[in-house]
């Protein structure tokens, strides 16, 4: 386009100035009487009628051969004439040396002279034109007589007494460029027929004394140049059309591929829908004969899902580029190794801390207790400070507690809510034990009470147990999940947000569906807990609205409506799960865990490859130092929470001196992982793959996972900013 427009501009806007020049050479030789160009002759008639008072001078000057400026350009002529004109003497005049001219009154000059002679009233453009002709403004030296606002211009050849010099005053650069391009044009595009004709015309000029011939000659040459310019323009147009065509072709192919992808995506969505429908159907069928009217509770749902999961997961894993199977295999080897050592070390090891927990072993717990105590005091009932510090505090304490419990209760569940520990403690030592045991028992008890014993005890037990194991090596969230709690009932809201707080979740609260939708527009959340019956906008409607712009944030309905129709209705409006009301802390936690697994699993997965490599020797050395007597490598550490434990704030001396042998007579290092025997590895691995799968499908997290590192960072950045709102 640029190429195209440039010559066009060139032709139209500049021709006024340029024409004289390239027509001048032929004209110069032929005649002095006639105005050399048609342009010239066009200019003067315009001048005359407007300013009859100037008639005399104008009429006299331009056609006059006696004006003494035969070869001078139009502009220079006008300039000269202007200066010679006594009518303008008060505004513009020659300088005292008569080698420059002075505009005495710029305003008058702009108002009177410019419109008359130069047909505009812009002083700046007059100056520009002067500059083009190589006139330069001169500092007023001795011309102060005319006041400060006068302008003096000088050209070495522009002198009142030196008319011959005027001929040499030419436009700078532009004309030369113009002539050269013209030359190339004529050589390139002129047909051989035209060319001689042109020469003949030029050659014939001297012999003919009349003006018309010259005009013909110049017009024909003008035509020729016009043709060539047009020709080049057409070429350019053709070229750009070609470009356009290819561009459009690219766009079309892009469009087609986008369509293809969309179709594929739709298929994927459809199959996912079908899967979910299937699951639901299963769920409802499963539920109905047993307890009509009871909400589809998780414990029952899980076995089906996990069965389903394993085959699906297998397929997904095999196609995954990341190939977690390698990781799984590697960790299996590690675990085998571990269990071998565990068997060896079942002999009482005394003060030797379990290898996997060496850095964050016993002392952190002891020191952590007072710390937690203080944070509780500071909090004064609200656990906000705990929430903030949770990644660091929970890491060590969680890691520590597990070996204690697992030594006594292998295969049982440990809830790693570290900061719950200090409460209601009377004895000093076994505090943690007591609490932990209670916490272990509670969930399993509640599951049994909820689930009829007939409901496939083995399969319902396995997710439970497996979930346990995950908790042990992922004691907390990698980052505190951000949850939006939508609840109109103040009491439930207060309780639920407290539950969330205790579970290490950062919660914002919306009081109805309307507020929830608005809040979802403003912020990103990892999960939404949505009440159903609410004023203004109920949970189902709010979910539909949210689903219009947010397709993947899991929305869990909290409801006491329990009939299957309702539940299907919730699902069909875009909800991902049901949390029957009233819910317990454990119910809430397993729900969070199920849907926010990526916040833990990701840290887990990202840890494994890194720690499998030889790269973290330094950390190991540190650990060995800290524990003095421990020399072995600990491959299983890769399954432990990342850095907070290794870079623990406790000095090494504390580790050694503070290691009490009293309450930990024999510590099974495997207990920390909840691994008692080899049969469990398989189940564990299956669970890990199951986890991967649930990450991908439940809650439709697929896009989120690819963007995971980002969102993790985001959370890290946000963590400090948000606290529970009550």
């Amino acid at each position, binding site marked *: 386009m640029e190429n195209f427009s440039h010559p066009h501009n060139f032709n139209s806007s500049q021709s006024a100035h340029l024409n004289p020049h390239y027509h001048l050479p032929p004209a110069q030789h032929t005649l002095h009487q006639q105005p050399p160009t048609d342009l010239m002759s066009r200019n003067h008639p315009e001048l005359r009628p407007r300013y009859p008072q100037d008639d005399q001078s104008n009429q006299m000057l331009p056609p006059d051969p006696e004006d003494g400026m035969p070869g001078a350009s139009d502009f220079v002529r006008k300039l000269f004439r202007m200066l010679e004109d006594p009518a303008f003497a008060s505004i513009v005049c020659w300088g005292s040396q008569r080698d420059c001219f002075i505009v005495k009154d710029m305003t008058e000059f702009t108002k009177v002279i410019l419109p008359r002679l130069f047909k505009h009233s812009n002083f700046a453009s007059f100056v520009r034109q002067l500059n083009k002709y190589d006139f330069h403004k001169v500092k007023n030296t001795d011309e102060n007589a005319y006041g400060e606002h006068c302008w003096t211009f000088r050209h070495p050849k522009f002198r009142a007494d030196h008319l011959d010099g005027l001929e040499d005053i030419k436009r700078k650069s532009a004309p030369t460029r113009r002539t050269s391009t013209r030359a190339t044009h004529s050589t390139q595009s002129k047909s051989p027929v035209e060319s001689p004709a042109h020469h003949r015309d030029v050659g014939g000029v001297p012999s003919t004394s009349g003006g018309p011939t010259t005009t013909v000659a110049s017009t024909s040459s003008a035509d020729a140049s016009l043709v060539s310019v047009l020709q080049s323009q057409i070429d350019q147009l053709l070229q750009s059309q070609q470009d356009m065509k290819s561009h459009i072709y690219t766009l079309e192919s892009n469009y087609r591929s986008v369509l293809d992808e969309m179709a594929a995506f739709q298929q994927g969505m459809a199959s996912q829908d079908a899967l979910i429908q299937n699951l639901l159907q299963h769920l409802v069928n499963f539920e109905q004969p047993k307890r009509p009217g009871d909400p589809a509770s998780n414990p029952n749902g899980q076995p089906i899902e996990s069965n389903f999961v394993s085959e699906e997961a297998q397929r997904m894993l095999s196609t995954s580029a990341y190939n977690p199977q390698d990781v799984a295999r590697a960790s299996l080897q590690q675990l085998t190794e571990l269990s071998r050592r565990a068997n060896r070390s079942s002999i009482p090891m005394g003060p030797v801390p379990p290898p996997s927990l060496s850095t964050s072993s016993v002392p952190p717990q002891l020191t952590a207790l007072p710390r937690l*105590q203080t944070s*509780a005091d500071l*909090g*004064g*009932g609200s*656990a906000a400070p705990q929430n903030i510090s949770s990644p660091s505090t929970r890491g060590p304490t969680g890691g520590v507690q597990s070996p204690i419990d697992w030594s006594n209760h292998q295969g049982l569940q440990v809830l790693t809510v570290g900061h*719950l520990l*200090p*409460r*209601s*403690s*009377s004895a000093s030592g076994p505090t943690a034990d007591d609490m932990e045991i209670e916490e272990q028992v*509670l969930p399993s008890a*509640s599951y049994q009470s909820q689930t009829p014993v007939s409901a496939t005890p083995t399969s319902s037990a396995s997710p439970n147990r497996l979930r346990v194991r995950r908790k042990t090596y992922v004691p907390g969230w990698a980052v505190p999940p951000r949850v939006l709690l939508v609840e*109109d*009932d*103040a*009491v*439930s809201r*207060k*309780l*639920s947000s*407290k*539950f969330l707080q*205790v579970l290490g979740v950062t919660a914002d609260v919306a009081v109805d569906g309307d507020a929830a939708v608005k809040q979802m527009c403003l912020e990103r959340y990892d999960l939404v807990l949505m*009440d159903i*019956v609410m*004023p203004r906008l109920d949970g189902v409607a709010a979910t539909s609205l949210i689903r219009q712009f947010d397709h993947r944030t899991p929305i869990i309905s909290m409801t*006491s409506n329990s009939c299957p129709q309702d539940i299907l209705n919730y699902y069909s409006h875009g909800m991902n799960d049901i949390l029957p*009301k*009233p*819910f*317990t*802390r454990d119910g809430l936690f397993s729900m969070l865990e199920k849907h926010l697994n990526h916040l833990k699993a990701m840290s887990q997965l990202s840890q494994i490859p890194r720690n499998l490599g030889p790269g973290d020797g330094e950390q190991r050395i540190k650990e060995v130092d800290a524990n003095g007597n421990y020399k072995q490598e600990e491959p299983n550490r890769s399954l432990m929470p990342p850095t907070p434990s290794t870079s623990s704030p406790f000095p090494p001396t504390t580790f050694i001196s503070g290691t009490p042998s009293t309450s930990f007579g024999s510590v099974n290092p495997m207990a920390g992982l909840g691994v008692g025997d080899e049969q469990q590895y398989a189940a564990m691995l299956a669970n890990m793959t199951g986890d991967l799968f649930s990450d991908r499908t439940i809650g439709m997290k697929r896009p989120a996972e690819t963007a995971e590192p980002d969102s993790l960072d985001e959370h890290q950045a946000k963590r400090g900013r948000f606290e529970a709102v009550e």
Partner: protein
Amino acid sequence: MSLTEKRRDQMFQNQTMIDKEVFIQLIELDEDGSTEFLEGVAEEWFNQAEETLASMDDALKEKELDKFSKLAHFLKGSSGQLGVTTLQHSCTKLQHLGEQWDDEDESSKKMDLSEEEAIKRIKPILSRAKKEYKTAEKWLNDYLNANSDEDEDAPEDLQTPKAEVTQKEKDLSAKNDKKAVETAKVPVKVKS
């Protein structure tokens, strides 16, 4: 077993009103023996329940069964969350009756109850619910008082002097009366 726990256990004995498991989880939300959070929640619930029960009365008078059902549902939610099982169940039933069916009456599941019939069946259950609420309120207050007693004079005998209890009850009921007056002044905000 600490003093608090003994007392707590005593309070849980011989009652079916409160779901112990749920309630213990609430207790555990408080830091180390304090009842601050629980008190806050209980306070809120007292206000809410009284307000809601009053609104339910109004709705019944106006024969707005739909509204009545929603109010019952609302109270059911918070009661359940607090572990007040009796009230929760009554509210469930009231909610259903507001929808003109009776969960204990098979025929009503096929055909809606008439409005009159529904209201007729609602009345006894509503008054039962009110009684249940009063009992739960008293129990909760007792629990909170027992705990704060322990904070103040821990080594005291388990048997709380009867006089003190009655005095406390009087105080509380006076407080509640005052509260009721306050709620009456404020235009009742109906949550549906």
